[in-house]
Protein backbone atom coordinates (compact mmCIF):
# COMPACT_ATOMS: atom_id res chain seq x y z
CA UNK A 1 0.00 0.00 0.00
CA UNK A 2 1.33 3.41 -0.98
CA UNK A 3 2.22 5.76 1.84
CA UNK A 4 0.73 9.05 0.69
CA UNK A 5 1.33 12.57 1.99
CA UNK A 6 -2.07 14.17 1.48
CA UNK A 7 -0.79 17.58 2.52
CA UNK A 8 0.75 17.83 -0.95
CA UNK A 9 -0.60 17.12 -4.41
CA UNK A 10 -0.50 13.45 -5.34
CA UNK A 11 0.62 12.20 -8.74
CA UNK A 12 -1.81 9.64 -10.15
CA UNK A 13 0.02 9.46 -13.48
CA UNK A 14 2.89 11.59 -14.75
CA UNK A 15 0.34 14.10 -16.02
CA UNK A 16 -2.61 13.73 -13.69
CA UNK A 17 -2.54 14.99 -10.12
CA UNK A 18 -4.92 14.92 -7.18
CA UNK A 19 -5.06 18.45 -5.75
CA UNK A 20 -7.78 17.97 -3.15
CA UNK A 21 -8.15 18.75 0.52
CA UNK A 22 -7.83 15.81 2.90
CA UNK A 23 -10.18 16.63 5.76
CA UNK A 24 -9.74 13.98 8.43
CA UNK A 25 -13.02 14.99 10.08
CA UNK A 26 -15.12 14.70 6.92
CA UNK A 27 -17.05 11.69 5.67
CA UNK A 28 -17.24 13.07 2.18
CA UNK A 29 -13.98 13.98 0.48
CA UNK A 30 -13.79 16.11 -2.63
CA UNK A 31 -11.26 15.28 -5.30
CA UNK A 32 -10.22 17.97 -7.74
CA UNK A 33 -7.73 16.76 -10.36
CA UNK A 34 -5.22 18.55 -12.54
CA UNK A 35 -4.29 17.29 -16.00
CA UNK A 36 -1.07 18.83 -17.27
CA UNK A 37 -0.86 18.47 -21.04
CA UNK A 38 1.78 19.91 -23.36
CA UNK A 39 -0.04 23.16 -24.11
CA UNK A 40 -2.98 23.13 -21.73
CA UNK A 41 -3.64 22.57 -18.08
CA UNK A 42 -7.09 21.30 -17.20
CA UNK A 43 -8.61 21.47 -13.76
CA UNK A 44 -11.45 19.05 -13.03
CA UNK A 45 -14.11 19.95 -10.44
CA UNK A 46 -12.16 22.63 -8.52
CA UNK A 47 -14.27 22.28 -5.38
CA UNK A 48 -15.79 24.54 -2.79
CA UNK A 49 -14.94 27.95 -1.32
CA UNK A 50 -13.56 26.52 1.96
CA UNK A 51 -11.30 24.15 -0.01
CA UNK A 52 -10.02 26.85 -2.35
CA UNK A 53 -6.77 27.85 -0.53
CA UNK A 54 -5.53 24.28 -0.27
CA UNK A 55 -6.59 23.28 -3.78
CA UNK A 56 -4.97 26.36 -5.27
CA UNK A 57 -1.79 25.94 -3.23
CA UNK A 58 -1.46 22.39 -4.53
CA UNK A 59 -2.07 23.66 -8.06
CA UNK A 60 0.57 26.36 -7.60
CA UNK A 61 3.06 23.70 -6.48
CA UNK A 62 2.69 22.23 -9.99
CA UNK A 63 1.85 25.05 -12.41
CA UNK A 64 1.18 28.76 -12.53
CA UNK A 65 -2.55 29.52 -12.09
CA UNK A 66 -2.48 31.32 -15.43
CA UNK A 67 -1.42 28.06 -17.11
CA UNK A 68 -4.90 26.67 -16.52
CA UNK A 69 -6.83 27.03 -19.77
CA UNK A 70 -9.86 24.86 -19.10
CA UNK A 71 -11.95 23.96 -16.07
CA UNK A 72 -14.32 21.01 -16.36
CA UNK A 73 -17.33 20.93 -14.06
CA UNK A 74 -19.10 17.57 -14.04
CA UNK A 75 -22.18 19.27 -12.62
CA UNK A 76 -23.19 22.44 -10.78
CA UNK A 77 -23.06 21.50 -7.09
CA UNK A 78 -21.16 23.78 -4.65
CA UNK A 79 -18.78 21.01 -3.57
CA UNK A 80 -17.89 20.49 -7.24
CA UNK A 81 -17.42 24.05 -8.44
CA UNK A 82 -18.56 26.50 -5.74
CA UNK A 83 -15.18 28.24 -5.92
CA UNK A 84 -15.29 28.79 -9.70
CA UNK A 85 -15.62 32.56 -9.44
CA UNK A 86 -12.60 32.86 -7.12
CA UNK A 87 -10.69 30.32 -9.17
CA UNK A 88 -11.16 32.27 -12.42
CA UNK A 89 -10.22 35.48 -10.60
CA UNK A 90 -6.90 33.98 -9.49
CA UNK A 91 -6.27 32.29 -12.85
CA UNK A 92 -6.79 35.68 -14.47
CA UNK A 93 -7.01 34.49 -18.08
CA UNK A 94 -9.44 36.15 -20.44
CA UNK A 95 -9.50 33.01 -22.60
CA UNK A 96 -10.27 30.61 -19.76
CA UNK A 97 -13.07 28.22 -20.67
CA UNK A 98 -15.42 26.36 -18.39
CA UNK A 99 -16.70 23.09 -19.82
CA UNK A 100 -20.01 21.65 -18.69
CA UNK A 101 -23.33 20.47 -20.07
CA UNK A 102 -25.86 23.16 -21.04
CA UNK A 103 -28.25 21.89 -18.36
CA UNK A 104 -25.56 22.68 -15.78
CA UNK A 105 -24.24 25.87 -17.37
CA UNK A 106 -27.70 27.33 -16.85
CA UNK A 107 -27.15 26.87 -13.12
CA UNK A 108 -23.37 27.42 -12.89
CA UNK A 109 -23.88 30.96 -14.27
CA UNK A 110 -25.40 31.84 -10.90
CA UNK A 111 -21.97 31.58 -9.24
CA UNK A 112 -21.17 34.86 -11.02
CA UNK A 113 -18.83 33.38 -13.62
CA UNK A 114 -17.28 35.76 -16.14
CA UNK A 115 -15.40 33.24 -18.30
CA UNK A 116 -16.65 31.75 -21.53
CA UNK A 117 -18.56 28.51 -21.21
CA UNK A 118 -17.84 25.48 -23.35
CA UNK A 119 -21.12 23.62 -23.65
CA UNK A 120 -20.01 20.06 -24.33
CA UNK A 121 -23.38 19.14 -25.87
CA UNK A 122 -22.85 21.86 -28.47
CA UNK A 123 -19.36 20.57 -29.36
CA UNK A 124 -20.07 16.93 -30.17
CA UNK A 125 -19.18 15.95 -26.58
CA UNK A 126 -15.45 16.42 -27.01
CA UNK A 127 -12.67 18.96 -26.91
CA UNK A 128 -9.33 18.88 -28.68
CA UNK A 129 -6.48 20.37 -26.66
CA UNK A 130 -3.61 22.39 -28.11
CA UNK A 131 -1.48 19.26 -28.38
CA UNK A 132 -4.17 17.41 -30.30
CA UNK A 133 -5.12 15.36 -27.25
CA UNK A 134 -8.83 14.66 -27.17
CA UNK A 135 -11.05 14.64 -24.13
CA UNK A 136 -14.42 12.95 -24.63
CA UNK A 137 -17.42 13.90 -22.55
CA UNK A 138 -20.17 11.42 -21.83
CA UNK A 139 -23.61 12.66 -20.84
CA UNK A 140 -24.81 10.78 -17.78
CA UNK A 141 -28.23 12.34 -17.15
CA UNK A 142 -29.52 12.33 -13.57
CA UNK A 143 -26.37 10.73 -12.17
CA UNK A 144 -27.02 12.63 -10.09
CA UNK A 145 -27.68 15.94 -11.87
CA UNK A 146 -29.81 16.50 -15.02
CA UNK A 147 -26.68 17.76 -16.77
CA UNK A 148 -24.06 15.46 -15.28
CA UNK A 149 -21.10 14.51 -17.47
CA UNK A 150 -17.98 12.38 -17.12
CA UNK A 151 -14.74 13.07 -18.99
CA UNK A 152 -12.62 10.43 -20.70
CA UNK A 153 -8.99 11.07 -21.55
CA UNK A 154 -8.21 8.79 -24.49
CA UNK A 155 -4.45 9.16 -24.04
CA UNK A 156 -4.21 8.00 -20.43
CA UNK A 157 -7.42 5.91 -20.55
CA UNK A 158 -8.62 7.81 -17.51
CA UNK A 159 -12.23 8.55 -16.64
CA UNK A 160 -12.91 11.65 -14.55
CA UNK A 161 -16.23 10.37 -13.33
CA UNK A 162 -17.64 13.21 -11.23
CA UNK A 163 -20.11 11.92 -8.67
CA UNK A 164 -20.40 8.49 -10.30
CA UNK A 165 -18.22 5.96 -8.41
CA UNK A 166 -18.22 8.40 -5.49
CA UNK A 167 -18.07 7.12 -1.95
CA UNK A 168 -18.85 8.31 1.53
CA UNK A 169 -17.19 6.92 4.67
CA UNK A 170 -15.12 7.91 7.70
CA UNK A 171 -12.14 5.90 6.44
CA UNK A 172 -10.82 7.48 3.27
CA UNK A 173 -7.83 6.83 1.10
CA UNK A 174 -7.09 8.29 -2.31
CA UNK A 175 -6.64 4.86 -3.84
CA UNK A 176 -9.41 2.35 -3.15
CA UNK A 177 -8.56 -0.38 -0.70
CA UNK A 178 -10.05 -3.87 -0.86
CA UNK A 179 -13.16 -3.06 1.21
CA UNK A 180 -14.19 -0.08 -0.91
CA UNK A 181 -17.63 -1.19 -2.13
CA UNK A 182 -19.79 -0.47 0.96
CA UNK A 183 -18.74 3.21 0.88
CA UNK A 184 -19.63 3.36 -2.85
CA UNK A 185 -22.99 1.69 -2.15
CA UNK A 186 -23.83 4.22 0.57
CA UNK A 187 -23.03 7.17 -1.68
CA UNK A 188 -24.96 5.85 -4.69
CA UNK A 189 -27.95 4.79 -2.61
CA UNK A 190 -28.08 8.30 -1.14
CA UNK A 191 -27.43 10.38 -4.24
CA UNK A 192 -28.30 8.40 -7.38
CA UNK A 193 -31.96 8.49 -8.42
CA UNK A 194 -32.55 4.87 -9.52
CA UNK A 195 -30.89 1.66 -10.58
CA UNK A 196 -32.43 2.03 -14.04
CA UNK A 197 -30.50 5.26 -14.63
CA UNK A 198 -27.36 3.99 -12.94
CA UNK A 199 -27.37 0.80 -15.03
CA UNK A 200 -27.81 2.86 -18.19
CA UNK A 201 -24.82 4.99 -17.16
CA UNK A 202 -22.70 1.93 -16.40
CA UNK A 203 -23.51 0.39 -19.79
CA UNK A 204 -22.24 3.54 -21.49
CA UNK A 205 -19.18 3.89 -19.27
CA UNK A 206 -18.04 0.29 -19.76
CA UNK A 207 -17.64 0.97 -23.48
CA UNK A 208 -14.53 3.01 -22.66
CA UNK A 209 -11.14 1.33 -22.45
CA UNK A 210 -10.40 2.21 -18.82
CA UNK A 211 -7.21 2.06 -16.81
CA UNK A 212 -8.44 4.20 -13.94
CA UNK A 213 -11.52 5.98 -12.69
CA UNK A 214 -11.06 9.25 -10.80
CA UNK A 215 -14.26 10.12 -8.94
CA UNK A 216 -14.96 13.52 -7.44
CA UNK A 217 -15.74 11.86 -4.10
CA UNK A 218 -14.32 8.65 -2.71
CA UNK A 219 -11.30 6.81 -4.03
CA UNK A 220 -9.47 6.20 -7.29
CA UNK A 221 -10.34 2.85 -8.89
CA UNK A 222 -7.74 0.95 -10.85
CA UNK A 223 -7.26 -2.50 -12.34
CA UNK A 224 -9.84 -5.20 -11.58
CA UNK A 225 -11.77 -2.86 -9.33
CA UNK A 226 -13.05 -0.97 -12.38
CA UNK A 227 -14.96 -3.81 -13.99
CA UNK A 228 -16.04 -5.23 -10.62
CA UNK A 229 -17.48 -1.89 -9.56
CA UNK A 230 -19.27 -1.31 -12.87
CA UNK A 231 -20.88 -4.77 -12.69
CA UNK A 232 -21.77 -4.20 -9.03
CA UNK A 233 -23.38 -0.81 -9.68
CA UNK A 234 -25.45 -2.23 -12.55
CA UNK A 235 -27.48 -4.17 -10.00
CA UNK A 236 -27.41 -1.78 -7.07
CA UNK A 237 -30.86 -0.53 -6.01
CA UNK A 238 -30.68 3.14 -5.13
CA UNK A 239 -32.72 6.31 -4.74
CA UNK A 240 -36.35 5.70 -5.71
CA UNK A 241 -35.84 1.90 -5.64
CA UNK A 242 -35.20 2.11 -1.91
CA UNK A 243 -37.74 4.85 -1.23
CA UNK A 244 -40.54 2.78 -2.81
CA UNK A 245 -39.58 -0.20 -0.70
Amino acid at each position, binding site marked *: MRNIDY*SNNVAITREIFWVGFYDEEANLHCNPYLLIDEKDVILFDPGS*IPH*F*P*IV*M*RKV*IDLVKPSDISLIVACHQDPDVCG*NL*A*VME*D*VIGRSDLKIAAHSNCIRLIRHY*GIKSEFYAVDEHDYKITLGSGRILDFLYTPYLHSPGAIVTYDRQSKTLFSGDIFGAVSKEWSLFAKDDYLPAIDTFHQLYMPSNELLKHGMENIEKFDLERILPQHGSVLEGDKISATIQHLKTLPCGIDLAVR
Partner: protein
Amino acid sequence: MSENILRTSARNVNEVRDINRDLVEQSLRMRCLAYLSQVKATLLTETIFEVDNSKKNLKDLNSRLVSQNDLISEQKEEIQTQLEELTITRLELEKANAALEEKNRELGRFNRLFIDREFRIKELKDRLKELEGNP
Protein backbone atom coordinates in the same frame (compact mmCIF):
# COMPACT_ATOMS: atom_id res chain seq x y z
CA MET B 1 29.59 16.77 13.78
CA SER B 2 28.87 16.83 10.03
CA GLU B 3 25.91 14.45 10.60
CA ASN B 4 24.50 16.89 13.15
CA ILE B 5 24.86 19.74 10.70
CA LEU B 6 23.14 17.69 7.99
CA ARG B 7 20.29 16.67 10.31
CA THR B 8 19.83 20.26 11.49
CA SER B 9 19.89 21.53 7.92
CA ALA B 10 17.34 18.94 6.81
CA ARG B 11 15.10 19.85 9.74
CA ASN B 12 15.42 23.53 8.91
CA VAL B 13 14.62 22.90 5.25
CA ASN B 14 11.52 20.94 6.26
CA GLU B 15 10.45 23.66 8.66
CA VAL B 16 10.92 26.33 6.00
CA ARG B 17 8.97 24.21 3.49
CA ASP B 18 6.10 23.77 5.95
CA ILE B 19 6.09 27.47 6.86
CA ASN B 20 6.17 28.36 3.18
CA ARG B 21 3.23 26.04 2.47
CA ASP B 22 1.22 27.55 5.32
CA LEU B 23 2.04 31.06 4.14
CA VAL B 24 0.96 30.26 0.58
CA GLU B 25 -2.32 28.78 1.83
CA GLN B 26 -2.84 31.74 4.15
CA SER B 27 -2.22 34.19 1.33
CA LEU B 28 -4.62 32.26 -0.95
CA ARG B 29 -7.20 32.24 1.84
CA MET B 30 -6.80 36.02 2.13
CA ARG B 31 -7.05 36.37 -1.64
CA CYS B 32 -10.22 34.32 -1.54
CA LEU B 33 -11.62 36.43 1.29
CA ALA B 34 -10.59 39.61 -0.54
CA TYR B 35 -12.41 38.40 -3.64
CA LEU B 36 -15.48 37.46 -1.65
CA SER B 37 -15.35 40.83 0.13
CA GLN B 38 -15.12 42.53 -3.23
CA VAL B 39 -18.12 40.53 -4.44
CA LYS B 40 -19.99 41.39 -1.24
CA ALA B 41 -19.02 45.06 -1.60
CA THR B 42 -20.24 45.07 -5.21
CA LEU B 43 -23.48 43.38 -4.21
CA LEU B 44 -23.88 45.79 -1.31
CA THR B 45 -23.21 48.79 -3.56
CA GLU B 46 -25.72 47.49 -6.10
CA THR B 47 -28.22 46.87 -3.32
CA ILE B 48 -27.72 50.38 -1.93
CA PHE B 49 -28.12 51.75 -5.47
CA GLU B 50 -31.31 49.72 -5.88
CA VAL B 51 -32.61 50.90 -2.49
CA ASP B 52 -31.72 54.50 -3.39
CA ASN B 53 -33.46 54.18 -6.75
CA SER B 54 -36.44 52.62 -5.09
CA LYS B 55 -36.46 55.45 -2.52
CA LYS B 56 -36.34 58.05 -5.32
CA ASN B 57 -39.15 56.26 -7.13
CA LEU B 58 -41.17 56.16 -3.92
CA LYS B 59 -40.49 59.86 -3.36
CA ASP B 60 -41.65 60.64 -6.93
CA LEU B 61 -44.68 58.45 -6.42
CA ASN B 62 -45.39 60.15 -3.10
CA SER B 63 -45.18 63.66 -4.61
CA ARG B 64 -47.48 62.50 -7.43
CA LEU B 65 -49.85 61.13 -4.84
CA VAL B 66 -49.69 64.41 -2.89
CA SER B 67 -50.42 66.48 -6.02
CA GLN B 68 -53.23 64.10 -6.98
CA ASN B 69 -54.52 64.34 -3.43
CA ASP B 70 -54.43 68.17 -3.70
CA LEU B 71 -56.27 67.93 -7.00
CA ILE B 72 -58.85 65.67 -5.43
CA SER B 73 -59.24 68.14 -2.53
CA GLU B 74 -59.72 71.02 -4.98
CA GLN B 75 -62.24 69.01 -6.94
CA LYS B 76 -63.95 68.04 -3.71
CA GLU B 77 -64.19 71.71 -2.68
CA GLU B 78 -65.53 72.62 -6.09
CA ILE B 79 -68.09 69.83 -5.90
CA GLN B 80 -69.02 71.01 -2.39
CA THR B 81 -69.52 74.57 -3.67
CA GLN B 82 -71.57 73.29 -6.57
CA LEU B 83 -73.55 71.15 -4.18
CA GLU B 84 -74.24 74.14 -1.95
CA GLU B 85 -75.30 76.19 -4.99
CA LEU B 86 -77.51 73.35 -6.13
CA THR B 87 -79.00 73.13 -2.65
CA ILE B 88 -79.79 76.86 -2.75
CA THR B 89 -81.24 76.50 -6.21
CA ARG B 90 -83.26 73.50 -5.07
CA LEU B 91 -84.61 75.48 -2.09
CA GLU B 92 -85.49 78.40 -4.34
CA LEU B 93 -87.16 76.03 -6.78
CA GLU B 94 -89.02 74.40 -3.91
CA LYS B 95 -90.18 77.86 -2.76
CA ALA B 96 -91.19 78.80 -6.30
CA ASN B 97 -92.92 75.48 -6.65
CA ALA B 98 -94.77 76.02 -3.36
CA ALA B 99 -95.85 79.50 -4.53
CA LEU B 100 -96.98 78.06 -7.87
CA GLU B 101 -98.86 75.31 -6.09
CA GLU B 102 -100.54 77.97 -3.88
CA LYS B 103 -101.43 80.00 -6.96
CA ASN B 104 -102.69 76.85 -8.62
CA ARG B 105 -104.83 76.06 -5.60
CA GLU B 106 -106.18 79.67 -5.64
CA LEU B 107 -106.92 79.42 -9.35
CA GLY B 108 -108.66 76.17 -8.62
CA ARG B 109 -110.79 77.87 -6.04
CA PHE B 110 -111.61 80.72 -8.48
CA ASN B 111 -112.34 78.19 -11.15
CA ARG B 112 -114.72 76.35 -8.89
CA LEU B 113 -116.38 79.69 -7.97
CA PHE B 114 -116.76 80.63 -11.65
CA ILE B 115 -118.14 77.23 -12.50
CA ASP B 116 -120.59 77.44 -9.59
CA ARG B 117 -121.57 80.94 -10.72
CA GLU B 118 -122.08 79.72 -14.32
CA PHE B 119 -124.25 76.90 -13.04
CA ARG B 120 -126.21 79.40 -10.88
CA ILE B 121 -126.66 81.79 -13.87
CA LYS B 122 -127.86 78.86 -15.97
CA GLU B 123 -130.29 77.86 -13.23
CA LEU B 124 -131.59 81.41 -13.01
CA LYS B 125 -131.92 81.65 -16.82
CA ASP B 126 -133.80 78.37 -16.88
CA ARG B 127 -136.10 79.61 -14.04
CA LEU B 128 -136.67 82.87 -15.96
CA LYS B 129 -137.59 80.98 -19.09
CA GLU B 130 -139.91 78.84 -17.07
CA LEU B 131 -141.60 81.85 -15.53
CA GLU B 132 -141.89 83.63 -18.94
CA GLY B 133 -143.47 80.54 -20.44
CA ASN B 134 -146.06 80.18 -17.68
CA PRO B 135 -147.74 83.56 -16.94
